[in-house]
């Protein structure tokens, strides 16, 4: 997670080709961008491609960057485009089993009512628990997954997420709610089985 207030970069130095300032930028943002790639593509090699292409593209376009958005927003925008392009390229090779459900306008109504929220942390975050969380994120439709990653994993604001993805704030809020509810359902099904409390009818 990047706290944008703790990372300030000189746009002038970056645009003038200051290698040391660029190295600082790479250092600050490489971990979150790699994480975004990993969560979007679920594959370390693809995540590394997203990471490298993001900074190669940033280097190529720094001179054109006018600073209308923050450097952080600009970098995340390049990274999310790289990730989505790679997903599209790979989809051409996807088999039918790899297809994910398309984003739909279905209502987001909760269906599982088991309170597993007080299970101990070591149980929730056991190796198996972490795999269940990763799998739940992986199975979100990509348009919801990207919003969820930026907002809830990287802790960016609704406004920043909207700017990065070129969406309205309302649209980001809708997608975020749907992503959260879908994950809650999946995790409720998983943790609910481990919860001694009975499900309400």
């Amino acid at each position, binding site marked *: 997670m990047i706290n944008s207030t703790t990372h300030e970069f000189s746009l002038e130095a970056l645009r003038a080709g200051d290698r*040391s300032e660029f190295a600082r930028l790479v250092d600050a943002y490489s971990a979150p961008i790699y994480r975004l790639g990993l969560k979007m593509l679920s594959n370390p090699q693809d995540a590394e491609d997203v990471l490298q292409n993001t900074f190669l593209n940033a280097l190529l376009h720094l001179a054109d960057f006018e600073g209308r958005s923050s450097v952080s927003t600009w970098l995340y925008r390049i990274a999310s485009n790289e990730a989505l392009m790679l997903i599209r390229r790979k989809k051409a090779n996807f088999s039918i089993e790899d297809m994910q459900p398309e984003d739909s306008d279905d209502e987001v109504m909760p269906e599982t009512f088991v309170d597993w929220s007080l299970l101990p942390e070591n149980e929730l975050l056991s190796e198996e628990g972490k795999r269940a*969380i990763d799998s739940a994120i992986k199975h979100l439709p990509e348009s919801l997954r990207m919003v969820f990653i930026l907002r*809830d994993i990287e802790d960016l604001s609704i406004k920043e997420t909207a700017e990065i993805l070129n969406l309205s704030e309302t649209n980001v809020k809708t997608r975020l709610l749907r992503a959260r509810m879908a994950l809650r359902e999946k995790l409720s099904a998983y943790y609910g089985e481990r919860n001694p409390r009975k499900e309400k009818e």
Partner: protein
Amino acid sequence: MSAHSHENCQALLGTLSEYIDGELPADLCKEIEKHLEGCENCRIVVNTTRRTIDLVQAPQQSEALPDDVRERLFKRLNLDTYLREKLSNGQGG
């Protein structure tokens, strides 16, 4: 959902994200909390949604970039000099 479809629950669902993120005005929060006192299903949805977000964030925050990935990135960008400086200062990752 048949046992859980009255109007206030629908309204809560519409503002759930903002409520959890602490972005609602105090009077609306009070109304929601009043509803939650009497509606166990909504309470469960709020608790488990909140926990879902915590759980997803928790393991991520300590995740550093793997050293080999960082090294290849700096080489690809012709920033090897800075990679060495950082690593020798023990600030890698």
